[in-house]
């Protein structure tokens, strides 16, 4: 057994990476819920979660425990008990599966074995993500149908129709990037985005493919069933849409899947249009100092946490926890600044996470700002505006690519 393990170091590394990514991602999903509530609250001039832990930081933990201890109610007259139970599992597993091929950073070495900030680097990574996300329709459809209840069924029908419609625009908007990169591998697409555009801007595909990005982002909001496209769960009309009959942990799984999809959408937008793990600054000696951004960011955040304890009359728990987190972050910043190899290692993930957080903020911002679409408007917008726009983008991009060669 030990022989076999030492002979297959890549397998051990892969298992460790999967465990690590799942832990980080699930924690991040829990905290993005907190982030969303906080941001929306501040946009609406409220405080948001504040009671459980400092700044409500322990709220996700409390929510998770609450979900776990709630009574798990399974309706008696289901259309299919098996499918009713299968749907939430399908939702979560498919949502997490898509993350497997996302490259969070460049290659690096562990104990002499080359590896990278990804779980799998496959040639058809982009198709893999699109394929897996296209299957998530089933979890919604099956949940709605198997509940044998009118609101879930109507919600599921709406949601299915919406997801099929916007998937077309989503897939077509990506083709422009594919034409430029000439590869379906997400790692290769990021590597294609190195260098400078007109000497100033980073060579990210957002600039030549701006129209595609708009199409992509709008359709990915629709794909994740988020506001302003959350007609599948329009509370005023459909109670909660397809997951009305789900309670306790099974409801939490749908919730988790939705947020995992938001992450996947943000990851994809980062990889395809914003240079993935690449720093926005040029790689010349003059800009060398920008390497210290991760250290500075960690130190600043830590300093803010420590200073926060002095701002108001806080509880002892608040003071203790915030000081602890702040000191840890300050220490991390110091270590990063003093150990160059470590600093180099975190460059990729740092920029990737920074860009992803920006997208997460935009997702939340849009939800807090825009009212819900009417259903016929939603369909008309997808089919009559986004889809033709994406096709037009493909035609223009292809022509621009072929033009110089006569």
């Amino acid at each position, binding site marked *: 057994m030990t022989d076999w393990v030492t002979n297959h170091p890549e397998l051990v590394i892969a298992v460790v990476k999967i465990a690590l990514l799942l832990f980080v991602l699930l924690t991040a999903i829990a905290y993005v819920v907190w982030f969303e509530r906080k941001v929306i609250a501040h946009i609406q001039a409220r405080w948001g979660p504040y009671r459980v832990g400092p700044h409500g930081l322990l709220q996700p933990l409390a929510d998770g425990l609450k979900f776990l201890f709630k009574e798990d109610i399974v309706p008696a007259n289901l*259309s*299919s008990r098996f*499918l009713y139970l299968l749907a939430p599992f399908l939702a979560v597993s498919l949502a997490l599966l898509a993350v497997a091929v996302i490259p969070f950073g460049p290659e690096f070495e562990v104990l002499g074995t080359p590896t990278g900030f990804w779980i799998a680097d*496959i*040639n*058809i990574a982009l*198709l*893999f993500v*699109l*394929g*897996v996300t*296209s*299957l998530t*329709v*089933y979890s919604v*459809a*099956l949940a*709605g*149908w198997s509940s044998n209840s009118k609101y879930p*069924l109507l919600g*599921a*029908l709406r949601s*299915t*129709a919406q997801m*099929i419609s916007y*998937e077309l625009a989503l*897939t077509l908007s990506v083709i422009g990037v594919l034409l430029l990169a000439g590869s*379906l591998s997400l790692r290769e697409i990021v590597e294609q985005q190195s260098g400078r555009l007109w000497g100033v801007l980073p060579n990210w595909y957002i600039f030549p493919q701006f129209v595609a990005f708009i199409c992509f982002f709008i359709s990915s909001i629709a794909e994740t069933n988020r506001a302003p496209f959350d007609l599948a769960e329009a509370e005023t009309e459909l109670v909660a849409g397809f997951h009305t009959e789900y309670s306790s942990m099974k409801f939490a799984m749908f919730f988790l899947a939705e947020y995992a999809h938001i992450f996947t959408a943000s990851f994809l937008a980062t990889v395809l249009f914003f240079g993935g793990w690449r720093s926005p600054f040029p790689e010349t000696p003059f800009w060398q100092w920008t390497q210290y951004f991760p250290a500075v960011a960690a130190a600043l955040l830590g300093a803010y946490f420590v200073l926060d304890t002095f701002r108001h009359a806080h509880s002892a728990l608040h003071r203790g926890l915030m000081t602890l987190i702040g000191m840890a972050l300050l220490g991390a910043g110091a270590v990063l600044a003093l150990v160059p190899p470590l600093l180099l290692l975190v460059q990729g993930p740092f920029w990737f996470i920074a860009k992803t957080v920006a997208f997460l903020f935009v997702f939340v911002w849009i939800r807090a700002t825009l009212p819900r679409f009417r259903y016929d408007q939603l369909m008309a917008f997808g089919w009559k505006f986004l889809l033709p726009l994406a096709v037009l983008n493909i035609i223009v991009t292809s022509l621009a690519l072929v033009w110089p060669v006569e």
Partner: protein
Amino acid sequence: MSADVILFFLFGGLAVLGALSLVLQRHPIHSALSLILVMAALAVLYLLLGAEFIAAIQIIVYAGAIMVLFVFVIMLLNAGEEERTDLSRVTRYLGLPVATALLVETGWLLYRAWPGDVGVVPDRLVGRTGAVGRMLFTEYVLPFELTSVVILIAILGAVVLAKKER
């Protein structure tokens, strides 16, 4: 046995099981889901042959689009369980002989191929996206374009039918 062979039998078996379940299930939704299982298992078999692009398209187009429409329609009509009826006369008299003939043919092919045939050697380059695209737009460009015309006609037909309904 190498990993390839184990995976082949695993997913080949899964495909056959899915196909059996597709025919034997009484509820249309369960049948449709069995068909999705068959598609997914087939995609893995394509992957084993090195045809990664075809495998991905198999999932996206068949499992992710066409079968979604099937499930959608079944849900929309809220179709219940099928009722067992007596077999039609055609199936009663032709079913068994035709099935036997097909089985015999498959068995004969297997018997003839068994000892010497090394099977398909996966070509890692042919299944690549670029290779498939080049083949589609050079060697098979006429059938490819004709297929798209057929699909276009089908779409026109659907639009006309939908218009008449109103």
